[in-house]
């Protein structure tokens, strides 16, 4: 193993012997076990990568919250729709709190690969977070004072296991999900302006301005949320924007990502190796595609 990189050449394994060993292990009935089975929604690749990096999955955890939006907030008005933004923030906070609670119950240090699902309805905002709680494997340094803090406040990250591993290797760690949402009324045009613009190719500045206003507010909230969680920045920011489907005069903008902080003394350069593949991309096959050509997507395993 290279002492500089911590990387080594993969040992050559006799995979047929391994398979045979596995089959032999099933030839005798398993003794009854009272162990709590581990559950995880990580793919095989993700699970192996996490293991290689010294982390192990513990449990599939989730947090769901439904928060009401008071009556009348989507009616015509001016400026920001703060009650809707507050409802969004409350739903996200509650879902993240429940997710952390489930992670804490299994003594996890954090949750990786969190699937974020936010639905804005006219009268309620639903937030669902689902991911896999993880902890450092025995042997990995997990006795420092920072680990008590990690257990008390597990990190939450929507990064994949690959991204999480790369981030850790570069000396950074996720601290939590950073969210920001803003809903803004697009101001009405005056009757005169609307009539004048009827036959024109013209920018609707009221919508453009509302979009900018919502964007600024949401991004600022996300930044504040990241700083509040102890992060130095946010990676993998996703945004959704546009008029609400049930209230076209209202613009919504949401932004979220994983807040990260530097835990090493300085950023560690990953120094990737350049490769020139000689083959075409391998065709990925899912057994589900056998059913018919229209259903070939399959699911991640």
């Amino acid at each position, binding site marked *: 193993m290279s002492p500089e990189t911590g990387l080594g050449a993969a040992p050559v394994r006799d995979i047929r012997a391994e398979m045979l060993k596995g089959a032999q292990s099933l030839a005798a009935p398993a003794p009854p076990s009272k162990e709590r089975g581990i*559950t995880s929604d990580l793919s095989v690749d993700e699970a192996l990568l996490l293991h290689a990096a010294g982390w192990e999955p513990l449990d599939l955890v989730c947090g769901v919250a439904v928060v009401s939006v008071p009556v009348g907030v989507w009616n015509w008005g001016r400026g920001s729709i703060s009650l809707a933004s507050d409802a969004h923030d409350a739903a996200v906070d509650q879902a993240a709190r429940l997710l952390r609670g489930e992670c804490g119950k299994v003594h996890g240090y954090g949750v990786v690969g969190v699937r974020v699902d936010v639905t804005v309805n006219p009268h309620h905002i639903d937030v669902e977070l689902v991911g896999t709680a993880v902890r450092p494997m025995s042997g990995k340094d997990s006795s420092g004072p920072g680990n008590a803090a990690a257990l008390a406040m597990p990190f939450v990250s929507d990064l994949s296991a690959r991204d999480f591993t790369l981030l850790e290797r570069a000396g950074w760690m996720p601290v939590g999900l950073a969210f920001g949402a803003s809903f803004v009324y697009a101001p009405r045009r005056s009757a005169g302006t609307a009539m004048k613009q009827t036959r024109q190719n013209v920018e609707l500045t009221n919508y453009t301005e509302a979009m900018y206003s919502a964007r600024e507010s949401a991004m600022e909230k996300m930044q504040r949320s990241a700083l509040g969680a102890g992060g130095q920045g946010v990676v993998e920011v996703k945004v959704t924007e546009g008029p609400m489907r049930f209230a076209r005069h209202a613009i919504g903008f949401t932004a979220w990502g994983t807040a990260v902080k530097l835990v090493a003394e300085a950023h560690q350069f990953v120094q990737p190796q350049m490769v020139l593949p000689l083959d075409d991309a391998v065709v990925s096959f899912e057994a589900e595609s056998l059913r018919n050509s229209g259903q070939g997507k399959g699911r991640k395993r």
Partner: protein
Amino acid sequence: MSDLSGQGPGQGQGQGQGQEPEPDVSADSVGPDTGRGPRGDLPEAAMRRLEATSFSSGLSVPDFAACLDIGLQPVALVQGFCVMQWGWYGPGSGTMRGMSPYMGGQQAPGAYSETYRCPHGFVSNEHRSWGQNLEQPWVEEAWTKGYHTAYGRMLEEAGTLGAHGVIGVADRVSNVADTGTTEFHFLGTAVTVEGGPPPAGGVPWSTYLAGQRLTKSIEAGFMPIAVVAALASVRIWAYCMTEYYMEGSMGGWGNNSGPALVEQVSKAHMASRQLARKHVRQQLAGDELHGATMDVVTRELSAGDEVIDCTLRGNRVRRFKDFDPVALPRPTVRLS
């Protein structure tokens, strides 16, 4: 080298082509220790097909190659079906809840339920003075019966052929027309482990994985045991506050000053997911669940009244050797 020279699985186990299958063998006695051809209660056409002198598989060419590499020999594409009719669970069915929280629901012992009471006192007969979150074990049981029957039939086909396992399993649960009927369909490739013993009890192991993903899992020390799945179904009978919050008409009875957590609906959603996880864990017997997928379907019946169905499925695996992680892969940048 794998023996794929047109020899059928039954013959590969030592059966002559003209030999009659055993006439009276119960379905649950099938297993790979037969040395005989297809038997059990499989349809006659299926038996004819399975006795043919060629193998079949649902594997792609890369997956097929990976399968041979690790010493798995494909036997046949095996399937299992079950079509279930869903019974009536409405009023008078015996499974409907009581007409008040004091008359008692019909939940199974230990099933999840929570009751919510109106904070306003008596208002009118239309006012929902109480509500309930209620696990629906009868729905879960029907789903489980359909799922496991189809799964069992696929394993029966594989076991009849002397297979040790089924890889690349794909399952589908779909409605047949609008008749309250659900079809469960399993499909996978039965395999034998070259030189390997049959699994204990003669029941083939199974996995959603195939090809390189299965290879990596084996290499890391995880042997597939079975595909597992469970449904959790939770019904929300909304009480007044949930109704008001979810339809946005506080009607003068709610607090309209700001956003509020809709506790009944939030708890029902959490419960459906936790129950699905609990049901799956009961099938693990201390083993691990890898590559889980959670699918949630919510049907809104009226304001606040909902049915939440959460399905969780994945690969049950067992560690067969001490922890042996792969080397940390080297990051690469692809030039193209």
